[in-house]
């Protein structure tokens, strides 16, 4: 695992500004090297931006214009009708209330899942870092190895467990599933963070008579806000973007947004409305994109930690 902390600090780390004259050697702005360097970067950047651009442009066109025109050309006549239709009236199966249903389902799934998984994992990480008991490390190793087991291996046993408890198909069931599968990476994240905190703090609090929960709530929690933010970013994007668990553990009226989006776009009946499809696609991608653009460098830290999750 890459040292996650170095990812965010690496960019600002002043390792290059050692003693002596600093700053780059003055160079000609239009040297061949610069033209090549920036030229390549700009071309690649345009390639990466292209799909986003096409999505937006397509969603603002009417169907006749799409049939006649070029997918790369900007809309001649901007219309927001596809957006309204995608949000409020697009059909999936029998439901014709658009993506709004999936959106609210996703909100109802994501919010409790994020809170529950982070609460469990932070307490776990804290126990593993500061209150190790016999066998704790064994469970931790199982947990980490478990993060690499393909989900497909564990899907069905969980279906049975949820069915036995009577919450298969409900949002509660899906929230529990997300908390379970978020646990390995989040526990690792919190354990490593708490381990790196000075132990004197913990000892001093012990001497003052604080207990397990007291130290967690009054010392560890307030001192570890950055790592909580990283965990929230990681979980919000991860859970919002999930498809597999959504499709396995929910029913059509509790489908999260990604599942509903796929059903709208890939449904075989009816005439394909590409503008509505693209509007729906942007709407689904909007939440993680907003999280991404707001969180900036913290996002890099979060995904680097969460990438192991796959």
């Amino acid at each position, binding site marked *: 695992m*890459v040292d996650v902390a*170095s*990812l965010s600090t*690496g*960019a600002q780390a002043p390792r*290059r500004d050692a003693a002596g004259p600093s700053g780059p050697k003055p160079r000609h702005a239009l040297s061949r090297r610069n033209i090549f*360097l920036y030229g*390549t*970067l700009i071309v*690649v950047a345009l390639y*990466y931006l292209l*799909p986003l651009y*096409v*999505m937006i442009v*397509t969603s603002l066109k009417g169907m006749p214009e799409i*049939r006649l025109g070029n*997918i790369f050309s900007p809309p001649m006549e901007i219309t927001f009708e596809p957006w309204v239709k995608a949000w409020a009236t697009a059909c999936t199966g029998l439901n014709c209330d658009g993506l709004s249903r999936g959106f609210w389902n996703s909100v109802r799934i994501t919010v409790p899942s994020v809170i529950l998984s982070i609460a469990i994992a932070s*307490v*776990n990480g*804290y*126990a593993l*870092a500061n*209150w*190790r*008991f016999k066998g*704790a490390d064994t*469970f931790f*190793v*199982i947990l980490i*190895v478990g993060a*690499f087991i*393909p989900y*497909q*291996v564990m899907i069905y*046993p*969980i279906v049975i467990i949820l069915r036995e408890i009577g919450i298969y198909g409900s949002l509660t069931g899906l929230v529990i599933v997300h908390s*379970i599968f978020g*646990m390995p990476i989040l526990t690792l994240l919190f354990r490593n963070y708490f*381990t790196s905190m000075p*132990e004197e703090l913990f000892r001093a609090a012990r001497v003052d008579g604080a*207990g*397990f929960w007291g130290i967690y709530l009054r010392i560890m929690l307030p001192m570890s806000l950055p790592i909580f933010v990283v965990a929230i970013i990681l979980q919000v994007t991860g859970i919002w*973007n*999930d*498809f*597999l668990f959504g499709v396995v553990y929910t029913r059509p009226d509790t489908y999260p947004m990604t599942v509903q989006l*796929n059903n709208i*776009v*890939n449904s075989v009946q009816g005439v394909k409305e590409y503008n509505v*499809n693209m509007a729906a696609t942007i709407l*689904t*991608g909007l939440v*993680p994109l907003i*999280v*991404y653009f707001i969180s900036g460098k913290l*996002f*890099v830290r979060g995904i*680097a930690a969460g*990438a192991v999750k*796959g």
Partner: protein
Amino acid sequence: MSNSERPSQILRNLNAKIASIPMILTALVVFVGGTAWTVLYSFTNSKLLPRLSFVGLDQYHRLWSTSRWLVSIENLLIYGAISLVFSLVIGFVLAALLDQKIRFEDTFRTIFLYPFALSFIVTGLVWQWLLNPDFGVQRVVRDLGWTSFSFDPLYNSSIVIYGISIAALWQGTGLIMCLMLAGLRGIDEDIWKAARVDGIPMWKTYLFIVIPMMRPVFITTLVIIAAGIVKVYDLVVAQTSGGPGIASEVPAKYVYDYMFFAQNLGQGFAASTMMLLSVVIVIVPWAYLEFGGRKRG
């Protein structure tokens, strides 16, 4: 810190133990128990419901003689090879370019990484639209006058997996670039100075000095990419639903379809056990060395 020095050990640890119950349950019931359950039932002939009537390796024999599974494995290998090679090469080159003390580094990095924030479903649907032969890239090039131009990877069963790989690379290379950039930033500036003093060309410095020094980063990146390859599912569902025909099927989709549509649980369990086996061979030894061996310090 050692627990044995302190008095009243059982009571002191009681809270930690209670707090760890969710972790213990997850580790034992879901990860160990669930995996063992699936492996066990892969030796039965369960159809609609799981039943414990053992048939030995029958499910595996059937699995490896099903053409859909063989296509899935072949696709996974092609997709995996493309993902590994291209995301490493593109990721490293982009990171090296960004490491040249350029202006607007943050802007470029933000642009290269944003697709990673999007789900595979969104990625798959956008590329399905871009690669649509009637409206997408093919049509645009044909409208420019090159009427025989053909680029329809999603509708051509011999190249459909490459079409899926294009989308996967667009989504995932930003992450690899970030990991590589972190690795490059960890290389001491003195190495560069020494190489410059010795007159070693830049590409040689990268190839023979910097890349060998970044070995740990490369290993981590490889594992991350490999873990993602085995799990590929949503992207295929969104982009082609496995089509045309069965040309773009992947193992994860085989498992899902047999468990929840074909109502042939035994096949699904056998296929998922094969997925597990491939991960065990590739990843678990690494994970054990990386996390299991490291003690608190």
